[in-house]
C-alpha cells in the first residue's frame, strides 16, 4: 500500500497515517511481519479522518458488511474494547482481515475521501482494534444465544469454515470443525506467510472460537476418514463445506517434473504450515534456491517470491504473462515485493524447463508476450511474440498460476452436484447445495478468490443454516 500522500494532496488534506514498516533491506532476510502496527495515538489520528458518512460507501464495499464508521468512532473515543466488539458482530476474524483483505477494491475503494485524496486506512484500523484486544483485552467473550441442541459439522477450518463456526456458535448451536491438516486455519496457515500474517494471530482467532465452544477436530479428512452421510448418522443436522480450492495447477510444459519445480501450494505449505524455514530445527526441509523464478502474478506468487528471498535467494524473478495492470495481486503485495528487490518479468511466459543429467532444474525457456483482444475475463489476452524466446537460468521454480477444485470429497460424495470445473454447485445467496442439509461456500464454490469473499459466503451460509435449524430446509 502506498500510504504516503503526494505533496499536492498533502496541501489539500491531512494524509493518512502511515503504518510503520520494517525496512525493505532488513525484512527481506527475516520472517517477521512487515508492517508493525499503529500505536493508539496513530490509530486515533487516523480515525479522526473518517467523516462518519450517513450513507457510508465503505460498508457497502465490505463483503461482510462491517459497520466501519461505527467501529472507527469507538477508536476515536479511545474505547478500543467496544470497537472490537462492534467489529465482531459482523466479522469473527478481524486481525486476519485487517491484514489480508484487498481493501483498495473494497471498503477503502468506496471511501468518500478516496475521490479527492487518500481513503481512511480502514484495514489498518481494523487490524489495530483486533491487535489491541489481543494484547490488552480482558478476554471477555461476546454474548452467545441459549443452546439450541442442534449440531453442525463444518468441513475445513479455513476462512469460510471458521466464519460459519463463529456465527453459528454465537447463535447457540453446537459446532464441530473438521480439518484435514494437523492444525486449523486453512489457507491462513498453510498459504499466507508469517511475514504477512503471523501464525500466532491465526491460532488466537481459532482459540477465540474454541473459547466460545467450537470443537476443532484436526487430522480428519472428510471423504476419507469419515463421509458426509456418516456425519449425519452421528447426529449432525447440517454440514457446511468450506474445502477451499486446493488442487495446484501446473503449466503442463516439458520438463515440469524436474527436481526444483514446486507448486506454490507445496512451497508455501512447507514454509508456513511446516515452518521449514527453520530447518533443520524443524524436520521438514525446503529447497533454498539461489536463482529463483516464480510463475504467476497473484498474491500467492508474491508470497512465494518474498519467501524465496527470505530463504536466501540471490535473485528472485517473477514471470507473468500479462502486464502490470492485469496483475491480480493486492497492490500492497506487489509494492512490497518490488521494494524488497523482486524483479518483475512482465508479458513473459515460460515454454519449457531445462534440466541437467541429475534431473535438476537449471533454467527455463520463456517467450515474450503482447496483449491482444480482450478474452472472456475482459482482460486483454496475451499472445506470444514469434521468435522472442530467451533463456532464464534458475535453480528453483515456484508455479503459482492458480488452483483448482480438489476432488477428494466431491468424488466420494456422488449426490453432491459439481460443475464442469469440479466446483460444488451451491445457491449463490444461501450456499445451499443440492444435497439436503449440506451447504458450501468459499473457493470450493467460486474457484480461488479472497479470504474475505470466503468469509462473506460463510456468513450467508451460516444465516441459511440457522434458518434451516430453526425452520427447516
Amino acid at each position, binding site marked *: 500500500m502506498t500510504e504516503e500522500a503526494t505533496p499536492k494532496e498533502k496541501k489539500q488534506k491531512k494524509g493518512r497515517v502511515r503504518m510503520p514498516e520494517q525496512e525493505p533491506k532488513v525484512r527481506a532476510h527475516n520472517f517477521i511481519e512487515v508492517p508493525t502496527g499503529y500505536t493508539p495515538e496513530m490509530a486515533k489520528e487516523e480515525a479522526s479522518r473518517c467523516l462518519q458518512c450517513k450513507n457510508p460507501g465503505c460498508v457497502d464495499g465490505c463483503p461482510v458488511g462491517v459497520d466501519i464508521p461505527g467501529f472507527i468512532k469507538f477508536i476515536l473515543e479511545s474505547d478500543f474494547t467496544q470497537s472490537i466488539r462492534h467489529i465482531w458482530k459482523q466479522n469473527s476474524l478481524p486481525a486476519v482481515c485487517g491484514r489480508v483483505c484487498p481493501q483498495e477494491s473494497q471498503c477503502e475503494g468506496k471511501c468518500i475521501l478516496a475521490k479527492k485524496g487518500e481513503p481512511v486506512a480502514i484495514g489498518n484500523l481494523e487490524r489495530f482494534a483486533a491487535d489491541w484486544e489481543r494484547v490488552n483485552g480482558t478476554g471477555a467473550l461476546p454474548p452467545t444465544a441459549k443452546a439450541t441442541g442442534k449440531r453442525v459439522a463444518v468441513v475445513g477450518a479455513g476462512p469460510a469454515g471458521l466464519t460459519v463456526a463463529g456465527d453459528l456458535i454465537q447463535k447457540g448451536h453446537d459446532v464441530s470443525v473438521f480439518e484435514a491438516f494437523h492444525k486449523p486455519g486453512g489457507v491462513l496457515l498453510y498459504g499466507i506467510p508469517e511475514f504477512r500474517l503471523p501464525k500466532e494471530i491465526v491460532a488466537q482467532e481459532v482459540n477465540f472460537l474454541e473459547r466460545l465452544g467450537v470443537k476443532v477436530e484436526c487430522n*480428519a*479428512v472428510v471423504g*476419507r*476418514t469419515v463421509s458426509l452421510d456418516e456425519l449425519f448418522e452421528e447426529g449432525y443436522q447440517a454440514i457446511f463445506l468450506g474445502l477451499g480450492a486446493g488442487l495446484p495447477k501446473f503449466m503442463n510444459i516439458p520438463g515440469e517434473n524436474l527436481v526444483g519445480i514446486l507448486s506454490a501450494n507445496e512451497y508455501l*505449505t512447507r514454509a508456513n504450515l511446516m515452518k521449514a524455514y527453520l530447518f*533443520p530445527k*524443524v*524436520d521438514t526441509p525446503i529447497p533454498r534456491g539461489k536463482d529463483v523464478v516464480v510463475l504467476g502474478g497473484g498474491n500467492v506468487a508474491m508470497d512465494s517470491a518474498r519467501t524465496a528471498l527470505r530463504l536466501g535467494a540471490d535473485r528472485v524473478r517473477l514471470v507473468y504473462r500479462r502486464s502490470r495492470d492485469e496483475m491480480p495481486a493486492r497492490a500492497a503485495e506487489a509494492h512490497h515485493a518490488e521494494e524488497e528487490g523482486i524483479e518483475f518479468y512482465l508479458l513473459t511466459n515460460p515454454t519449457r524447463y531445462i534440466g541437467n543429467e541429475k*534431473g535438476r532444474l537449471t533454467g527455463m525457456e520463456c517467450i515474450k508476450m503482447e496483449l491482444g483482444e480482450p478474452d472472456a475475463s475482459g482482460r486483454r489476452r496475451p499472445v506470444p511474440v514469434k521468435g522472442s524466446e530467451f533463456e532464464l537460468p534458475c535453480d528453483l521454480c515456484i508455479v503459482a498460476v492458480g488452483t483448482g477444485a480438489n476432488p477428494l470429497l466431491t468424488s466420494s460424495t456422488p449426490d453432491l452436484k459439481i460443475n464442469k470445473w469440479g466446483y460444488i454447485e451451491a445457491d449463490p445467496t444461501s450456499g445451499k447445495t443440492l444435497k439436503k442439509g449440506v451447504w458450501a461456500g468459499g473457493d470450493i464454490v467460486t474457484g480461488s478468490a479472497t479470504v474475505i469473499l470466503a468469509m462473506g459466503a460463510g456468513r450467508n451460509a451460516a444465516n441459511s443454516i440457522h434458518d434451516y435449524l430453526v425452520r427447516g430446509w
Partner: protein
Amino acid sequence: MFKIVKREEMSQGTVVLNEIEAPLIAKKAKPGQFVILKANENGERIPLTMAYTDAKKGIIAVIYQVVGKSTALFKTLKVGEGYQDAIGPLGKATHIEKLGKVVCVGGGTGVAVLHPITRGMKEAGNHVTAIIGARTKDLLILEDFMRAASNELHVCTDDGSYGRHGFVTHALKDILDKEKIDLVVAIGPVPMMKFVSKLTKEYSVPTMVSLNPIMVDGTGMCGGCRVSVGGKTQFACVDGPEFDGHKVDFDELMLRLQAYCEDEKACHNEFCMMEETWHK
C-alpha cells in the same frame, strides 16, 4: 495422541513395526492405502502404507525402514508413547478381484505393504504365488506372514544366505517361463519395481506397483508426489499410490526421491549425534 500399543524391531533394527491406536482410520482402511504420521510439533509428515489393520481393536500397523531423521525419530518412540498426528486412510485402495493366477513380488519393507494385498488376492479366490527378497537373510521381513497369506512362497537373498541365491526377478522369470500369469503385483525399492515391470512387459503380463514418492499433505494439495505415468502427470497421493508398472517413469521417480538428499543427510547426522550424546 495416537498411542503405540505394540512395537517390534526387525532386520537388525533397521526396520520397525508399530501398531498404533487409530480407530477412525482402522475402521475405514483398505489394503493399499496409506497414512501420514507426524511424531511431534516440529515433526515431518511421513507417508507410510499400512501393513495391516484391525477395525475391532481400532489399530493400524506400519512397518518402516529407518532411513532419515524422521524415521530415526519414529524409532525412538516406545510402547505407550505415540504420534502427535495420524491422518488417513489416504490414497486409493487396491483393486482386488478374482483374476486367476497372481504373483506378488516384494522387496525390503515393500513386503509389509504387499502382505495385505497378497492376502486379499488369495481371499478373492486367486492362486497367489509370493516372492520376497532381501539383500541378506537377516534383513528379510514377514516371511511367516507371507507364507500364510499366499498359496506358495519363494524367498530370495542377494547373497545366497537364505532361500534362493539371486534377485526376485530371477524367481519371477522362472514362473513367467513356466505358466501364464494374470497379474503381477510388485512393491519394493524403486529399482526392483522398475526391473520387475521391465521383465513382465516382455511377457505382456499386467503389473501393478505401489509408489511412495515425497509428499506433504497426502490429499492432492501440494503436487510434490507427482509421477509420470504413460506420459501424463499423476499425483501418487490421490491418483495412486498404485499404478500400471508398465507406464511408470521409474527413472524420473528415482531422481525426484533424491530431491532432499543433502538436507536429509545433514539433518539425520545431527540427530544421530544428539541421540548418541543422550545415551552417553
